[in-house]
């Protein structure tokens, strides 16, 4: 069993919500070897009331946040969408969908995300279908949010059915995120990439994420922190990497999970270049 070697791992955190984090967090990412991040559009903790509110948020993701990250030597990419938690107001959702293509054209936007389901409702499904159609028309990558806890298994299956019913989308260009022990196998069996999220209580611990890699293998899988405005850890990926090292996994496997795999998936977008 190998214990901590003094090596700076090169890590991409492909799912982190930096608009909710401080400059101290950027500093911590940079000095820890996390120099490339991608930030999906998500729920702000409250429902936005107007399309202008979304426009401001998308401007923050595509203009302000990359500039803030660059001051710390961190490359910031993002994904644009309407989060499923805000899909029940169909009128507003349609207005937001209208402005999304303009933002998808921005130079640091890698695709549509994080789309998906939250409580597996009919309106959430309608808006998911609309996002999938936009991605298909524009040949965009897709980053999927799967629901929490008891809703995850059903939601993951509904999401996969919806995406697979769109023949223009290859599952190899879709990452289904927040996978856990009961969904990872089904996701990869259908040809999708799978993401594991290190988040206290509601998702994976570093130890469980490594258990999943040991159980299901290291292909087409990435691990992220999804750090946001809740209790979460922007350096969680480092802790999972260290968990692998503690167990004696080789550095080449650690590098594959935390750098090569996300780089391979994200490089399907011509806009992406890893630092």
């Amino acid at each position, binding site marked *: *069993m190998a214990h901590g070697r003094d090596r700076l791992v090169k890590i991409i955190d492909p799912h982190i919500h930096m608009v909710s984090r401080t400059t101290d967090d950027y500093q911590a990412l940079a000095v820890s070897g996390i120099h490339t991040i991608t930030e999906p559009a998500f729920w702000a903790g409250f429902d936005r009331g107007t399309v202008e509110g979304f426009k401001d948020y998308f401007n923050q993701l595509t203009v302000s946040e990359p500039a803030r990250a660059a001051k710390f030597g961190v490359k910031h990419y993002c994904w644009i969408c309407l989060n499923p938690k805000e899909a*029940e107001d169909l009128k507003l959702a349609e207005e937001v969908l209208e402005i999304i293509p303009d933002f998808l054209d921005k130079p640091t936007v890698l695709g549509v995300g994080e789309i998906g389901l939250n409580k597996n409702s009919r309106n959430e*499904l309608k808006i998911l279908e609309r996002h999938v159609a936009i991605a298909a028309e524009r040949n965009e990558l897709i980053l999927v949010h799967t629901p929490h806890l*008891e809703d995850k298994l*059903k939601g993951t299956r509904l999401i996969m059915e919806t995406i697979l019913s769109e023949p223009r989308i290859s599952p190899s260009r879709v990452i289904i995120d927040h996978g856990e022990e009961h969904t990872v196998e089904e996701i990869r*069996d259908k040809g999708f990439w799978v993401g594991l999220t290190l988040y206290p209580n*509601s998702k994976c611990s570093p130890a469980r994420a490594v258990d999943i890699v040991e*159980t299901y*293998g*290291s292909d087409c899988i990435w691990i992220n922190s999804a750090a946001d405005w809740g209790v979460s850890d922007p350096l969680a990926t480092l802790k999972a990497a260290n968990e692998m090292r503690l167990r004696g996994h080789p550095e080449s496997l650690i590098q594959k999970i935390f750098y090569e795999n996300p780089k391979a998936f994200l490089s399907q977008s011509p806009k992406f270049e890893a630092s």
Partner: protein
Amino acid sequence: MGGEKSPMSGKEVLEVYFLENRARLIDIASFLDRVDRTRDPETGKTDFRYKAFMRGLKILVESEGNRTKALQINFSDLSREPRKSAVGLKGAYGAWEGPFGENH
């Protein structure tokens, strides 16, 4: 789809993880005792979350492998039809209240 296997021996796993998981087990016992000490323990024990938790403990003892996946499925909504509406719903409970919320 083969896994990477654990490079650790069984003894090493125990050396590294036994104490923290022993503590977790005691925390679970303490949680159940806490429910017992409430002024209305039967209310807690008929809650769908408590029932799912107790089923989970049985799965831990009786399963011979894939315990984590079995536990996850134990807590999952196993219905297939989309919910009519999610208005007013944001979070999750951690266990499924049943097809008609009958255990809620």
